[in-house]
């Protein structure tokens, strides 16, 4: 396992890459990502980010890309056996993947894990600008959509229909096939929630603006933030995992303390 603490260094995964098993796993992951990239690429309604990013930022991003990402995604972001093409994934995808620490990947596994962010804000912005400059793709969301001031009731309903089956009604996360999982949404920033919906990272499907409008996305974010800042009315939420945690709690704490009390009741007094 190799870690990347200094982003400027070229990726040092050579030892791992030589193992045939690792190659197979990388190819598998690459195939997974190819789908995602294709998804974003064929987005007919992609809001192309056309604002004039200074050439300097793009150049900065290109350097970072060459040093940290090109090993898997190719020098021109065209993709390779170990990483998908990033042409047309847009700034949103870069901001989500790098901004949540999922990229660069630390190790092979069922899915890229959320971890400590490896780059500074500016570095992420430069990387995003570079990838966005390659081809039009979903851009970073407008701040007005991230104010969490929308209609929480609408957001809650949309969340239940489109998101809860994987992320759980309270956003506590849930299991997917073969060791993958939908993560807990607590503490995820508004922008990252939005970007995830637009880009469909990893297993997650894409929810484009025709499916869930930008306003509705704002409502969903509003609801998630409402859940986050509103304490559970009934007391501690026991992880919001539903009957399993309630049942465990009852047996261990409830019945456990009652049994302890029965022992006290029937013990002979001193």
């Amino acid at each position, binding site marked *: 396992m190799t870690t990347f603490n200094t982003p400027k260094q070229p990726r040092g995964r050579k030892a791992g890459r030589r193992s045939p098993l690792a190659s197979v796993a990388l190819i598998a992951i690459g195939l997974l990502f190819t789908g*995602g990239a294709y*998804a974003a690429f064929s987005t007919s309604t992609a809001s192309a980010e056309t604002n004039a990013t200074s050439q300097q930022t793009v150049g900065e991003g290109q350097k970072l890309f060459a040093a940290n990402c090109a090993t898997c995604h190719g020098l021109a972001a065209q993709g390779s056996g170990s990483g998908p093409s990033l042409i047309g994934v847009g700034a949103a995808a870069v901001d989500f993947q790098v901004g949540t620490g999922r990229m660069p990947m630390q190790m092979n596994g069922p899915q890229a894990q959320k971890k400590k962010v490896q780059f500074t804000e500016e570095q992420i912005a430069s990387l995003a600008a570079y990838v966005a400059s390659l081809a039009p793709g979903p851009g970073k969301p407008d701040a007005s959509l991230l104010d969490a001031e929308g209609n929480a009731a609408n957001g809650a309903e949309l969340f239940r229909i489109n998101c809860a089956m994987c992320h759980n009604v309270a956003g506590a996360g849930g299991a997917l096939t073969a060791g993958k999982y939908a993560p807990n949404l607590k503490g995820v920033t508004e922008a990252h929630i939005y970007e995830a919906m637009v880009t469909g990272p990893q297993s997650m499907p894409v929810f484009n603006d025709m499916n869930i409008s930008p306003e509705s996305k704002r409502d969903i974010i509003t609801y998630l933030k409402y859940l986050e800042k509103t304490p559970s009315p009934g007391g501690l939420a026991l992880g919001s995992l539903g009957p399993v945690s309630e049942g465990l709690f009852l047996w261990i704490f409830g019945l456990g303390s009652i049994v302890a009390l029965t022992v006290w009741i029937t013990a002979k007094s001193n």
Partner: protein
Amino acid sequence: MAKDDNSGKDLTAADSSTVGHEGAPAGTAVVVRDAVANPGFPPHRPRVTDLDPSAERQAERTVYTLFYLSIVGSVFAIVAYMVFPIIPEDPGSVRLNNLFIGLGLTLALMAIGIGAVHWGKALMFDHEGIDERHPVRGTDETRTRAVEIFHEANVESGIGRRSLIRNSLIGALIAFPLPAVVLFRGLGPMDTNPSALLSHTMWKAGTRLAIDPTGTPIKASDVTLGSAFHVIPEGLQDLEHGKLEEKGKAAVLLMRLKPEDLNELPERKGWSYDGIVAYSKICTHVGCPVALYEQQTHNLLCPCHQSQFDVTNHCEVIFGPAKRPLPQLPIAVDSEGYLIAQSDFTEPVGPSFWERH
């Protein structure tokens, strides 16, 4: 305690002679001839409160203090009811209301309970008592009398002798609850056949696919690669009656894959549109919504019992208890570019049922 001393006696024999009727067989139990004797009761150990008057007074103080505390708890709960009202649209106020009324009541209850138990343990007379056991069966005398009573009742009523009366009564008693069973037919509507209902959904040729819950129709161009749309038939939201029943059969998941990823059967070639496929969302196992779509593996997962379906192979089952693939809804595009159903599902959706074939 000579009575309890079984020394020198056969233990099992002693059991059966005293409790249980005479000579109740011990089965394959081993009769121990020289069993160790029951030593009788151990000496009584007095408590601190029996020996030390100050400890007794201390225990007494503890008990009444607890009872007074309980009153404090009850008053606190009433005060909390008034001091922590529920403010509309503020779940935090509900939390405080719940917490403080609850804590007051907890104190009220726990203090009574602990006080009473402590009283019983520390202050009440603590010598154990002994009850004799008697066989559960009635005494021979009682049993003889019971048999006699039945006999007399038989003679006086003639129930054994007048067999026609007896048998017709038995027949009548069996027959009279039957109408009640028939009455329960009314639990379901009269003129409908459940298996016919289960075989059809709201979809028919030309019904537009619409987004759940808004009912907005979907254009084929809206469905980008990797998307998953949760779909209902257009018009479902306008139904006056049976909205949920129809939705429970007609809910569909719409996905777009790369056309080359789909391994379509020749007879279903025309059921998809440019990689867009629509499958029933109702699990063929026991009916949970199979809504977890992994856009990279193209697997669908049911969150209830973990059945997995492969969208690339007509949603055949790849894991879990379900047997049948999810039914596919044949789709096409109308002149305005909206996705429409070519027909209803060609098989019943949802869990299997007996008449399904």
